[in-house]
């Protein structure tokens, strides 16, 4: 017997975000949207399409090109009880606002002794692969994931995009909400109703026994696809979708690897000091005795991403790279005794 809550609809990641924004704006009139080209232009990637018409220019506030200014202004508005949801056109442009994010949004609650929280969300897409060249293709999530005081989420599916955005908007702390250019058109089933996710929890999105792939955002979609293909070849891959980069769900990661004994991290950021480095260290601490082989990482080559397609393609991790490393790792018996 199916209930209302069991109903799902097939929507794009883009639509799921749009739905979540609309729901939250209807539910709470303190929720305002702030960003470049989000109103009249309907968003560079059309995430806010239709919302200006529906809610008007006071709730959907187009800004001048002034990332430091409008991100900082959102912090101040949040301190006085508004719940701003800021769109930064892409993650790359957040570098202009990083002082406000890191030195202000992340600090105000703790540094002033817990008197004032900063309930705001900064949404922005990262990601390469669109030939946008070095300054427009970056995956700098680790910069934010490094900072105490921030929460950083990175949904990989439309369902999570909605549930995590609902959660982020209702959260009293500043949340960095990382989207990905390559995910906007992807489709998935989204449950009816507005049920927020819990920030800080990973999910085992595919169960397996031979090896664990840990991923987030776009990388999860690749991992799931590779796991499906390999299942047909008799290889059982488990996929852990991090969903939240800060806080990081270390127990779920370690439990999975304790079960499978082998781990690969698939990440779109650069290898050195990346998300995979943190996962590897976590596994050293929480699954060392269970590892049958060293943890492997599949990440982007460490170059400013070139424009030319053959170079860009080579620099970014793909399904073929993951597959190859999985096969290598299954053959690796270094730690078995």
């Amino acid at each position, binding site marked *: 017997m199916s209930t209302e809550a069991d109903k799902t609809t097939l929507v794009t990641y883009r639509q799921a975000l749009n739905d979540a924004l609309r729901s939250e704006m209807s539910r709470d009139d303190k929720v305002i949207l702030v960003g470049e080209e989000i109103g009249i232009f309907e968003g560079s990637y059309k995430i806010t399409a239709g919302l200006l018409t529906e809610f008007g220019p006071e709730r959907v506030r187009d800004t001048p090109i002034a990332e430091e200014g409008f991100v900082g202004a959102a912090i101040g508005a949040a301190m006085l009880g508004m719940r701003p949801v800021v769109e930064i056109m892409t993650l790359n442009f957040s570098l202009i606002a990083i002082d406000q994010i890191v030195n202000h949004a992340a600090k105000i609650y703790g540094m002033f002794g817990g008197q004032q929280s900063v309930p705001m969300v900064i949404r922005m897409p990262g990601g390469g692969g669109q030939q946008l*060249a070095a300054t*427009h293709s970056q995956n700098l999530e680790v910069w934010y994931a490094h900072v105490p005081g921030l929460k950083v989420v990175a949904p990989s599916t439309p369902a999570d995009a909605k549930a995590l955005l609902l959660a982020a908007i209702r959260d009293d702390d500043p949340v960095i909400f990382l989207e990905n250019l390559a995910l906007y058109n992807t489709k998935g089933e989204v449950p009816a109703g507005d049920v927020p996710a819990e920030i800080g929890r990973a999910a085992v999105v595919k169960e397996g026994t031979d090896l664990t792939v840990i991923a987030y955002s776009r990388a999860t979609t690749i991992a799931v696809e590779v796991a499906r293909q390999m299942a047909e070849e008799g290889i059982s891959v488990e996929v852990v979708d991090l969903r939240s980069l800060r806080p990081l769900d270390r127990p779920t990661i370690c439990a999975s690897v304790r079960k499978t004994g082998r781990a690969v991290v698939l990440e779109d950021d650069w290898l050195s000091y990346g998300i995979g480095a943190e996962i590897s260290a976590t596994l050293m601490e929480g699954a060392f005795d269970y590892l049958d082989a060293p943890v492997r990482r599949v990440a982007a080559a460490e170059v400013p991403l070139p424009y030319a397609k*053959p*170079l860009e393609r080579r620099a970014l991790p793909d399904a073929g*790279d993951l597959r190859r490393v999985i096969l290598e790792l299954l053959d690796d018996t270094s730690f078995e005794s």
Partner: protein
Amino acid sequence: MKQSRTAEADQLVEFYRRMVLIRKFELSADQMYKRAKVGGYCHLNLGEEASVVGLMDALRPTDYLFTNYRDHGYALMRGMDTGKVMAELFGKSTGVSKGRGGSMHLFDTEKRMLGGYGIVGGQIPPATGAALALTYRGAPGPDAEAVMCQMGDGTTNIGAFHESLNLAAVWSLPIVYVVINNRLGMGTTVEMAAGEPELYKRGASYRIPGVRADGGDVLAVRQAATEALDQARTERRPALLELMSYRLRGHSVVDPARYRSAADVETAQKADPVPALRAQLIADGTLTEKQAAAIETKVDGEVAAAVAFADAGPDPTPDQLFDYAYATPVPNAPTALPGERMVVLP
């Protein structure tokens, strides 16, 4: 039958040829984008040809130029090879930035075109610093070098603009900041975004003199730019030049610009500087219809040759990925490809 023309008329004919070159290059870039020869973001100078030609004629080969991502016309007018510019759009090794930068990132050390930059306002502080370097090089005077820093109207709202103008003022730098006011930053009008929409007045906070000129009039642009550059050369005083212009198309080749009213599009089309100059040259007897058509046909040939050159060039190969990672060799530079092990011990 060869008519004898005045030097001024010859000059205008040459300016017309240059404007046609930019126009046809941009139309070709648009087509090549649609054929997927060009990828990523691609922003055109359509409608801004008179501004680009006038500015670049005022700039001397010894001066330096920094621009935003809407940079094709500037590169061509700086004397960069048409084929190599197109090759960059195609992402070829034969491109001006070896296929690494694409449309937004044209660069040529020799031509002193120190880059098109994709981050809004990103070019302004470095351009200011280039002007600072010039102050260590030689004395001010009519032959001194200067820097021109181009940007769009929307860019005057970012902090980097204001910080840089202030630096240029307090350090007395030989730089001309040029704002191409095409009245739109993506879908945002100047009036919506700027507290002082008469952008040339924005220098006032820094006591930087501002001038507004008609960006559709190539001679007016050249005149205003020459004066501003002279002041930078001889007095080491920064200047702010605003050129009133129009963007004929969307923000980039993929933007259908649905947010624009029909009236606004019509105004922009009416102000199109390329047919306007053509009509003027024919009306005053400088060019015959046939001569104008001959100029256009010749430019068609140049653009077709540029496309052929770009097409024929080799793609960069994956083994070149780590070329240019660093200018100086360094031990242990990471060169792992995705999935390769980082730790390789002897």
